[in-house]
């Protein structure tokens, strides 16, 4: 049961592992070469992902929602588009690193058009890349391609913004449910941490949340943990709640 669940959640990694296993059997040379090719990208990932993690934290915790809406929201206009272009252009790292950032901004009120600009600029416009292009293909070539690409990005952003609506986006993890423990009620029985070690852990004699539910299945499973808690200290809020508000309601102190 457990294995099936894990496999279901990790379809892509499993598929890739199977392909590689097959390749190692029938063509070990090519398999080794592929692993070797991947190493460069793995190193790149390790250099960039921790930064992305910190930045999503900063967007979530430090940057006020109004600021994102003003900067990147629906009514931010050309200024918002240029800001998005700048943000995407000065960033470092492969395009998949832009996905979490884009998602965090989207959640805080950025418009879909500006997300397209950030993702595209992140992928295409990089200062070291432009320098490299000018070196091998000439400044002229680089400049013309840059102008055309930026134009295309803006037109595309406008089109995607018209075609795709917010309702077409998948529900975000933290929109699904915010998991909280009221420390004042927690009696430290450890039941939740024992049953759901992925989501709860014990620090001292209180339970704390380790991880927010990441998909609908997790939310469903975690509803059992709410029922499980003898002190009714676990709260799973199901709509997109402002954590500030929840904290106030729960009367959890900030210290």
């Amino acid at each position, binding site marked *: 049961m457990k294995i099936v669940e894990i496999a279901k959640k990790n379809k892509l990694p499993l598929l890739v592992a199977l392909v590689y296993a097959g390749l190692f059997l029938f063509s070990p040379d090519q398999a080794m070469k592929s*692993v070797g090719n991947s190493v*460069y990208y793995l190193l790149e990932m390790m250099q960039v992902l921790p930064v992305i993690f910190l930045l999503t934290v900063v967007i979530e915790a430090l940057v006020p929602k109004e600021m994102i809406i003003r900067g990147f929201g629906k009514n931010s206009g050309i200024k918002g588009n240029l800001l998005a272009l700048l943000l995407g252009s000065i960033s470092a790292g492969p395009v998949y690193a832009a*996905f979490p950032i884009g998602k965090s901004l989207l959640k805080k009120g950025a418009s879909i058009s500006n997300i397209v600009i950030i993702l595209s600029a992140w992928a295409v416009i990089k200062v070291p890349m432009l320098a490299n292009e000018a070196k091998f293909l000439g400044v002229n070539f680089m400049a013309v391609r840059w102008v055309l690409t930026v134009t295309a990005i803006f037109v595309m952003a406008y089109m995607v913004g018209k075609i*795709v609506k917010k309702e077409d986006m998948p529900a975000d993890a933290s929109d699904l449910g915010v998991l909280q423990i009221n420390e004042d009620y927690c009696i430290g029985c450890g039941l939740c941490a024992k049953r759901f070690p992925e989501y709860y852990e014990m620090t001292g004699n209180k339970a704390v949340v380790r*991880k927010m539910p990441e998909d609908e299945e997790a939310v469903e499973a975690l509803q059992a943990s709410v029922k499980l808690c003898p002190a009714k200290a676990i709260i799973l809020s199901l709509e997109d709640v402002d954590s500030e508000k929840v904290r106030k309601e729960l009367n959890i102190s900030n210290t």
Partner: protein
Amino acid sequence: MDIFTVLFWVIAIILTVISLVKDQKKTFEAMKKSKGMMGNMLGEIVAIIFIIGLVLTLIPPETIKQVLGSANTLTSTVISALVGSITLIPAFVAFPLVGSLVTVGASIVPAVAFLTTLTMVGMVTFPLEKKEFGMKFALTRNLLSFGFAVVIALTMGVIL
């Protein structure tokens, strides 16, 4: 690590420290949320990286060079755009490769199509994009990017 990545690190760390000083509890809460989101993505990202490695073995730079330099400009433009969409080779490999072709007189149209889809269209990262932003968003963005890459290539052929 290049200077930009280093700068990226420095900025992220400074902002995180500010966030921690301002509201420790809120920051830790955000870390838990991000951990959930990124943890969910990590397996996919590693899988994608190994797909990239595999694609590089199956479509090595030499093959790409042949495609880019082939005689019929129109077909080679479309094929180059497709190859660019599938592969994900580092810029420091792509630019010298294209540069060497252009200097020996190959048409720049397929070259530009390849360079542009290489970064703008992500067939390999598509599953992740779909998961994070939905099928409609990922499909629209990638299809439009492909179309515009060809338009950019043709325009450059006319201008330069």
